[in-house]
């Protein structure tokens, strides 16, 4: 289907006879115009999303290295990955990371939203301050965290030691596996909390006040009001935010790459960082693609639930 440029059509406007008129008439049909408008987006999504996605699947089934397109090898990449100790560690890391970070973000996020929903003075500034970590480039703020977790000059350790909470010199946050995971999760929660809080807040303020008044008249305590009124009414918003956040958390790259590069001894590698290390740094595009495709089942699940939710709307 040939798509006529809008400029061409406007030119036709002034000579409503002959061929121009016919072209214009054709272009003004609802379906032709409708297709015309989505055409650029369609081309973009086909060429730069759908096609690369198909390539990722092809890469994962082939012996493809940077600079040397290899042949089809079937599921060899996947077999090799499963046998790989680092990959199994990554699977475990990813789930620990996602579950812990998501739980923290959900609990703290709802709590923060409830606090922000009150009619306090300086409400706008408070919201602005709380949302800031979400706006600043993650890679750069993570650099700041890296310095805060420095092995020698960590401000976290300095404060804890001087407050008498731990004995000097304190943990080497980024150099020990358990602590490194805790550090990575902390930064992810720090960055993702605003998204949770602000979105839940939008859901909170849309709850009619009458419900609370009725509950109060019935003598419900503030906890009861939260548990029996707020939470059930928040469920749809909460579900959507959780689904979104699952994708973003599970696919995190920036924080781990900047903070630990997956170390120490692969204890913080996630799928994305391992795929980067294998596929680009290591040059093994086939295996890298296979690793990144492991993010797909979870993504599929989230897409499924999201679509169902939207259809119901």
């Amino acid at each position: 289907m040939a798509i006529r440029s809008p400029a061409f059509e406007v030119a036709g406007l002034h000579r409503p006879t002959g061929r121009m008129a016919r072209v214009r008439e054709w272009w003004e049909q609802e379906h032709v115009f409708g297709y015309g408008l989505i055409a650029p987006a369609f081309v973009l999504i086909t060429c730069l999303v759908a096609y690369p996605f198909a390539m990722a699947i092809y890469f994962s089934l082939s012996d493809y290295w940077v600079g040397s397109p290899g042949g089809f090898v079937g599921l060899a990449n996947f077999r090799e990955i499963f046998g790989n100790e680092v990959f199994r560690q990554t699977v475990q890391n990813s789930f620990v990371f996602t579950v812990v970070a998501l739980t923290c973000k959900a609990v703290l996020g709802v709590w923060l939203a409830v606090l922000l929903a009150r009619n306090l003075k300086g409400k706008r500034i408070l919201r602005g301050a709380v949302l800031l970590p979400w706006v600043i480039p993650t890679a750069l703020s993570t650099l700041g965290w890296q310095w805060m977790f420095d092995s020698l000059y960590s401000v976290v350790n300095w404060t804890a030691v001087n407050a008498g909470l731990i004995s000097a010199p304190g943990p080497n946050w980024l150099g020990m596996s358990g602590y490194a995971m805790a550090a990575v999760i902390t930064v992810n929660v720090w960055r993702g909390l605003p998204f949770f809080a602000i979105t839940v807040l939008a859901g909170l303020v849309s709850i009619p006040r009458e419900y609370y008044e009725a509950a109060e008249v019935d003598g419900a305590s503030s906890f009861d009001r939260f548990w029996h009124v707020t939470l059930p009414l928040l469920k749809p918003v909460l579900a959507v935010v959780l689904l979104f956040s699952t994708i973003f958390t599970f696919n995190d790259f920036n924080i781990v790459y900047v903070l630990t590069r997956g170390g120490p001894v692969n204890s913080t590698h996630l799928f994305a960082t391992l795929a980067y290390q294998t596929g680009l740094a290591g040059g093994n595009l086939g295996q890298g693609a296979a690793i990144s495709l492991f993010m797909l089942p979870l993504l599929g699940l989230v897409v499924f639930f999201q679509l169902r939710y939207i259809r119901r709307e």
Partner: protein
Amino acid sequence: MITGVRSRGARARSTMFGYANLVPFVFFALFPFYFMLITSFKSNAELYSLKSVPLWIQNGAIVDHYRYLFARTEFLTLIRNSLVISVTATGVSLVIAVLAGYSLARFRFRGVGSFGTAVFITYLVPPTLLFLPLSQVVNWLGISDTIWALIVTYPTFLVPFSAWLLMGYFRTIPREIEECALVDGASRMRTLLRIALPMAIPGIVCVVLFGFTLTWNEFIYALTFRSQSSNKTAIVGVTADLIRGDIYYWGSLMAGAVLASVPVVACYVFFLDYYVSGLTAGAVKG
């Protein structure tokens, strides 16, 4: 009102309680920025002394780290790269997304539903899934290690997001005015540009702000598709290899991080409400 039921004292106590509970959150959110800022103004002697108190500047603020950044590195070139990439990619994405979003909101034709679903799914696909094959596509196009690599690939995540957001905006505009214009003989394109578009300005501002922020902050594509130092974006430059050499680089590193955050923070401060509404629209309405 609830407040009528309670005494004034109880209300004051509950307000205090609200503020007190917010303190840890605000501290948690802001402390890293405060720490980055003071680090960038401290002397190396103070930064790397185990005896100094890290929580504030003791020995006087200095601007040496910033001076180093401008005099000895290509920082300004990187900022320019980032600006060109972000502005161009956002502009291109906006045009594509306005057209697609309007079509999705207004017209009925075969496949429009499936296309809407496709846009939504693309919106959910994370860049981490596509960066490996895209790096090959960029290679084949012969634009790897130029700023075009990012201008071409950034719309892949901007357009779905923007089209989805704008579709929501167009749907809230009553279609009667547009129908009147059509009856009066205006072409469909004219109706879109002259009538629908002006009413969707808040949505467009939102898309521009988010587009600029997301592209400016983007990391994985920028890291993957560029290798030469002078072609990098500010974020990748600061993170990767701009400031190295000796081990004492935290001061200039934090100075770079602070400066490279300025453009987005400036947008954020002026348009806070758009950020809040865009964030919630993207998640809740979508």
